[in-house]
């Protein structure tokens, strides 16, 4: 028996921008139609956007597929086509079994309905019988942790509660195929871990997961195979470790500076990134043991209270070494429209190796950019034959004589490092 449950053959999806834009009025369209009837009238050109181009894909039952790529690479569109929310412009997409999708934070929830009603609504959408849904209701409510608000309309939920319930519903209504887009963008670490565990168990129970995320570490831990989408096309497909390494390598440039197109309509966009060594020279070849800086050029097109950014650095394998937010350290950040250069100095803590810099731009409510591969860097130097490790830390070492009868003189300065070392339990 053929065990393929997802099949895409030469799938393309085109979006038209321009004349017949959404929300056009009937009156305008009729007037436009009449104008076109006149001889000599030409059809105005419309801008096209190919969100997917000739995508071929096969996914077997009981496996997890990761999808990586930049913003606008077509990751969300692929899920929309798989879930049948939208139809491809050409090509065929086929799925076998029930498909549940968790897209762009939130599944098919109706804001006016209560949490409980939305659970039934989603079950009915999946084609389940009322009894089947009732049987799983407790499980869903418990997983979501929103039992106190289960009879409150969804529109009063916080984004975290909304997401919890959405994930609980999608995962527990026993779909044969679970499509998950970027759930890890919100929610606390505990909930994220629960989500990943659930996805893993969905896979183990013989069902199929397609997972889109910027968190390459999560993709690497959950998905054996992955697809890298670039400009709507599949750039690479195969073992997740290979795909992720290739994807991250694509950010590499010789000199330390990269520029980007401003994104139309986005309140904040990243115009460029520059990596400088300790002398201030723009380069991505850095030496271990020296601090370096990362500078972002950001444009705000309007006043954006709470504007924030984060810089994160990951290894080529996708393991995130650190992820630091501007607001963690600085309270008074600019919010008015204009161009800013935001810089952060990274102390000498990274070991020799290749790293990838990711950037996040947004506010506490919205993400405008989350790109895990905007720049790549290489740290060079001697590893002095030490075992492989991610970070090098300037640990403060102390010692004290623990011999019998000597009184145990503490010979250190009593700073916070010492306190930390004293209070931590040693493994027995």
């Amino acid at each position: 028996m053929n065990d393929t449950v997802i099949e895409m053959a030469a799938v393309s999806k085109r979006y038209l921008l321009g004349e017949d834009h959404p929300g056009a009025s009937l009156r305008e369209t009729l007037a436009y139609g009449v104008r076109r009837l006149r001889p000599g009238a030409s059809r105005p050109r419309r801008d096209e956007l190919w969100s997917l181009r000739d995508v071929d894909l096969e996914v077997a039952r009981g496996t997890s597929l990761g999808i990586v790529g930049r913003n606008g690479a077509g990751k969300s569109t692929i899920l929309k086509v798989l879930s049948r929310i939208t139809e491809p412009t050409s090509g065929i997409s086929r799925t076998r079994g029930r498909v549940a999708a968790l897209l762009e934070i939130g599944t098919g929830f109706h804001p006016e309905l209560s949490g409980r009603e939305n659970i039934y609504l989603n079950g009915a959408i999946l084609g389940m019988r009322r009894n089947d849904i009732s049987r799983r209701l407790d499980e869903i409510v418990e997983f979501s942790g929103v039992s106190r608000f289960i009879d409150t309309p969804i529109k009063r939920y916080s984004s975290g509660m909304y997401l919890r319930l959405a994930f609980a519903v999608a995962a527990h209504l026993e779909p044969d195929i679970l499509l998950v887009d970027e759930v890890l963008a919100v929610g606390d670490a505990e909930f994220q871990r629960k989500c990943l565990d659930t996805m893993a168990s969905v896979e183990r129970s013989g069902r199929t997961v397609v997972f889109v995320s910027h968190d390459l570490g999560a993709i690497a831990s959950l998905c054996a195979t992955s697809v890298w989408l670039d400009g709507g096309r599949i750039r690479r497909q195969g073992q997740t470790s290979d795909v992720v390494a290739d994807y991250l390598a694509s950010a590499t440039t010789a000199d330390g500076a990269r520029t980007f197109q401003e994104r139309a309509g986005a309140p904040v966009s990243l115009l460029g990134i520059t990596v400088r060594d300790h002398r201030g020279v723009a380069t991505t070849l850095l030496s271990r043991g020296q601090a370096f800086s990362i500078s972002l050029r950001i444009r705000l097109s309007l006043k954006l209270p709470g504007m924030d950014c984060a810089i994160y650095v990951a290894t080529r394998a996708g393991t995130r070494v650190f992820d630091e937010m501007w607001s963690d350290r600085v309270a008074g950040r600019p919010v008015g429209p204009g161009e800013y250069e935001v810089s952060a100095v990274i102390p000498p803590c990274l070991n020799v190796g290749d790293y990838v810099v990711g950037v996040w731009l947004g506010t506490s409510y919205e993400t405008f950019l989350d790109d895990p591969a905007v720049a790549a860097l290489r740290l060079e130097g001697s590893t002095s034959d030490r075992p492989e490790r991610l970070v090098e830390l300037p640990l403060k070492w102390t010692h004290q004589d623990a011999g019998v009868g000597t009184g145990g003189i503490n010979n250190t300065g009593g700073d916070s490092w010492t306190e930390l070392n004293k209070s931590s339990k040693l493994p027995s």
Partner: protein
Amino acid sequence: MLPHIAEITGWVENSPASRTGLRPLLEVLHHRDLVRFLALRDLKVRYKQAAFGLAWAVLQPLLGVAVFTIVFNRIAGVAAPGVPYVVFTYVGLAGWAYLSTSVNECSESLVRYSALVTKVYFPRAVAPLASVLPGLADLAVASVALAVLMAVTRTAPGLPLLALPLALLSLVVAALAVGIWLSALNVQFRDVRLVLAFFLQLWLFVSPVVYPPDLVHGSWQYIYALNPSVGPLGLLRWSLLGIPLNAGPVAESLLVALALLVAGLYYFQATERRFADVI
């Protein structure tokens, strides 16, 4: 229990050719639990302000009856065949209230559920279908006042009462036939609702709501019967009040409603693939 479409074909396909033929209709059948859920939900919302919701279903036709009895019956001298004008008009107005409310709800159905349409797949025709069902509850409520009215005026229903389900079905078909067009158009053109208010007003005047269809004579009857409300309202009055049916025009009107529905489903199917991109 109807098997899921995936159990029939093994695969569910999404391609430019997949939403054609009878397949989308089969899918709607499979999702009848969803139809029921959405219809019941609408009903609950409508009757949430319970006392007023119930009162409105009775008051609306009653107030109409008062006005139209004075204007048409007393002043203009319009009479009803064989039954008191008050009862005749009450049935017409109750039927019309169902039609206009349902067409209105139906035209808004997809836009109202846009949060769902963009996030999850379900057979899109479920939304307009579910939106024409809650109006039937209004009719049930209105029928209580009708019973009182008939008792007072000593109008007894006869055997045709058994055909009431058929009359109701024809009302639903007529509402859906007009509404399904509007629901799809409304996704693409947001000024549909402005046109709709005007359209409903005109439709009321050309429908046999406050005057009997016999006012129209000769071959005009057949032009008049192109109106899909003529048949259902005729059937409703025949089954409740025993007013004789003018078979030709009624049959014609029912056929028009059916044809409009089939064409509407076809149009709906042709445009539903773009709903999520456009809404």
